């Protein structure tokens, strides 16, 4: 059973599904926060249990902390700085949690409705660079690839490189077409001539 039409009709949701599948999972912040929390909670637990049985585990500077709690006032600059740091850390974690992050792949068109295909964003970049350097008169090209936009900067030794812009654009467009991206990105091309080269 071919369901190509169905697949095309569901294009927007497929794009979303692929983006979700290739979205970063925030593993690094999760590991950092989990380890710090586990260690801190464990140390406090050990210290409290030690105090309960009448001795000191000496894993935390308890006497120093107790004195600090007695002598530090809420309007002490150090306490205020600590409170501000805590709030800032909270804001940072919120930002990490709420910012979705860039997917590591862009959606590729695929007829099979059961298959989600993504092409790594760096690969899109390399394909664009490849296509640009393939043009006669272009010696070097760097590209930046995002989900919706690809920017190519090519360098030519020719003094009058203006005419090459269209040619580079066509070459990169052709290559992007071959990639069959679900949402073809907008393309911007600039060609710089490296002064003092061959004319």
């Amino acid at each position, binding site marked *: 059973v071919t369901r190509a039409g169905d697949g095309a009709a569901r294009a927007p949701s497929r794009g979303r599904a692929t983006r979700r599948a290739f979205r970063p999972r925030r593993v690094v912040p*999760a590991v950092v926060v989990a380890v710090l*929390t586990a260690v801190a909670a464990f140390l406090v637990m050990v210290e409290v249990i030690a105090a309960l049985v009448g001795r000191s585990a000496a894993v935390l500077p308890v006497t120093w902390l107790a004195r600090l709690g007695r002598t530090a006032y*809420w309007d002490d600059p150090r306490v205020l700085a600590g*409170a501000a740091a805590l709030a800032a850390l909270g804001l940072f974690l919120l930002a990490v949690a709420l910012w979705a992050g860039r997917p590591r792949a862009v959606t590729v068109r695929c007829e099979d409705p059961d298959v989600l*295909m993504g092409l790594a964003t760096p690969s899109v970049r390399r394909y664009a660079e490849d296509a640009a350097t393939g043009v006669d008169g272009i010696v070097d090209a760097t590209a930046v690839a995002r989900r919706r936009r690809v920017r190519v900067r090519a360098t030519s030794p020719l003094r009058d490189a203006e005419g090459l812009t269209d040619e580079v654009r066509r070459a990169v467009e052709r290559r992007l077409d071959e990639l*069959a991206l679900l949402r073809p990105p907008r393309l911007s091309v600039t060609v710089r001539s490296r002064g003092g080269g061959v004319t």
Partner: protein
Amino acid sequence: MSRRPALVNRLVLTVAGLLLLAVGAAALVRGLGLYPRLFGASHTPVVDPAARAFADRHLWFWAALAATMFVLAVLALCWLAVQFRRDAAHAMRWGSDAPEGATTLSAHALTDALGADLGDSPYLRRSHVRLAGAPADPRLYLDVTADAHADPVAVRGGISHALHRLHRALEDERLPAIVYIRTER
């Protein structure tokens, strides 16, 4: 990758962030004396003498604190474990739901066959195939590395062909696949 850790991470990080923000902001408000009526006077010790006396008199306070810390540490370790658990399936159910006809297909047989097929394509350098999900609701994860300058149409063709053959071998049993393609540097 399964999306479950992503959801859990987002949720826990949000809660942790809100908690830290609330505590820090409350301490700031108190220290700056913005709402002394609500938050108490600013020029008072951080640890209230009355609270100290209360903690000193009640042993259960410390026991409860230790228990809370224990629970917190265990929860944090569980959260940590989620990050490293791979959502791998050993088998998928194959064929009808009839009780006598429930066949299971080993994940190895499936991923090996697909891996061998992908390996036949001259444009593909490496591929990693993984079966995930419940046996009744399996998913296939494909991680394919192509040649640096490989023709993208041929790369897609190779993958589609391999998946198509697998589908035919499975007699059109549904098996959603998530394919990640990258090119070599």
